[in-house]
């Protein structure tokens, strides 16, 4: 199996309990994947709830979805995809052991991630202004008696209008959990950039960068699903 006693050289990043660098790399990569597995199931609960309520309260979901800005949503999707690309390039730079390039790509990822969070904050603020935050600041006024601004929406009957709370609860739970993951990611990035600048990841030991990349891409994938599910319900109506 690991016929690598010969390789038992003391590589600087080899922790004492691993036999070889390769074993260490494989272990941490596999560990990261298992962690992402738990993340899938973490969001899985939310997606299940979403699926059930969308089937039950479809008209409320349509109207709720139409309250979101499709421009900001699309823009944010593009921003996240860009950040995924820059992250992938960062990993690439790390593989090629190019320190400055790596730092550059990581900074780009950081900037894009922050832009995403900024836009998200704008969207949340707008929801607050429109009284669409369930529990804290919620009113169905907009849906039962649409103001001039949203005239194109047909008014919802009262019973269905109340169900928009379920939609917005899920909207905030899902995007909130996603945003929390982004905030954690951005915080880790700050540390990584500092360490990358000091040259930690361009000497052949790049597991940390790779694993962070996996995390970042995962967060991107979650958004790839959230975007059509939350923003794009029946836009043609």
């Amino acid at each position, binding site marked *: 199996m690991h016929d690598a006693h010969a390789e038992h050289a003391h590589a600087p990043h080899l922790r004492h309990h691993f036999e070889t660098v390769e074993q260490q790399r494989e272990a941490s990569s596999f560990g990261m994947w298992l962690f992402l597995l738990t993340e899938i199931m973490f969001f899985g609960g939310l997606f299940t709830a979403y699926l059930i309520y969308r089937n039950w309260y479809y008209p409320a979901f349509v109207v709720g979805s139409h309250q979101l800005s499709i421009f900001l949503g699309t823009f944010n999707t593009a921003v996240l995809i860009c950040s995924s690309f820059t992250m992938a390039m960062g990993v690439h730079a790390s593989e090629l052991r190019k320190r400055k390039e790596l730092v550059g790509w990581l900074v780009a990822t950081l900037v894009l991630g922050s832009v995403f969070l900024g836009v998200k904050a704008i969207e949340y603020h707008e929801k607050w202004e429109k009284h669409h935050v369930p529990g804290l600041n919620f009113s169905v006024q907009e849906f039962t008696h649409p103001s001039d601004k949203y005239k194109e929406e047909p008014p919802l009957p009262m*019973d269905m209008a109340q169900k928009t709370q379920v939609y917005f609860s899920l909207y905030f739970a899902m995007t909130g959990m996603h945003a929390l993951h982004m905030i954690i990611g951005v915080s880790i990035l700050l540390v990584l950039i500092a360490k990358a600048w000091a040259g930690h990841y361009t000497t052949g030991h790049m597991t940390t960068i790779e694993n962070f990349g996996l995390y970042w891409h995962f967060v991107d994938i979650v958004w790839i699903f959230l975007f059509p599910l939350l923003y794009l319900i029946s836009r043609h109506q």
Partner: protein
Amino acid sequence: MHFISPVLWQFLVNWLTHFALFPPEASGIAPYTDALYFFLVLISLVGLAIVALLIGLFSVLYRKERNPEATQIEGSTLLEATWTIIPLALFMVTFVWGALLYFRIYNPPTNAMNIYVVGKQWMWKAEHPGGQHEINALHVPINRPVQLTMISQDVFHSFSIPAFRVKREVIPGRYTTVWFTATQTGTYHIFCTQYCGTLHSQMIGEVVAMSPDEYERWTAGSTSGASLAQNGERLFASLGCGSCHSGTADSHGPSLAQVYGNKLQMANGSFVTVDDAFLRDTILNPTMHQVAGYAPIMPTYQGQISEEGLIDLVEYIKNLNSNYRVQQTLNTSQVQTTAPAAAGTGVVKQ
């Protein structure tokens, strides 16, 4: 015997009086449940006996003194297959048997008499169609199927009558049903078995199974004057339901006469059978159950009618055979506009 110890004596007396290893079989379903139970106890005993016997036997035969050297045995596919297939077969029998029983318990016969039960922290409120209200008690006749239509006003409760071997969760926002035929007169426990807060263990009551004659007497003696349907009629009028559901050709809402039990076509093309749950839900979420051919103009009554009021309405609509009285009421209430105020018993006080 008092020289032993008064406490112990009392305990013994208590034991002998109340000694019970088995609940009374007081419903039509109980023997069926018990039969399955005995079958399961039997296979459990056999299974346990086999395991205990094997352990005991091998412990004696192959203890170190008798058998100092172990013989290594790898395993046996035949044996593995045996103890996979035999338990599996037994479990499948259990599954089929249990499923049949489940469908028997949760599938009420069509001729069952209906009693409504509202659970709330921490009491059971039973409402008979004749208008008899009971708290933490339920009077039923024997030898007649009784269906309970149950709903909770607040949290999950669970309605359980061990002597009848029936139990069903009582859920907020949705009707659940359970049915039984009492076979033995007597008084039995009603328990709330789903933990529901501080006084959970006080949410108990008694079901009184009576002979049909006695039941008739009880019904006559404890009526509150108005049947559920009559209460429902008043509520129907006071909420102004009749103005749309008048049954005339130009009315805004569908006619409700004899609608119960029918199949209705919905606006989205599907067909729905009208039952208690459907009636309740259409009052609260009318646009989610839009009947084909009508505009979605009915307002929701969510938060405006108590569960008891909803039960009155459901019972009223169930028994509505013609729209004659609806139209009558409509005409009179247009004349006397002050009349409905008195009838608001089912309306939530705001």
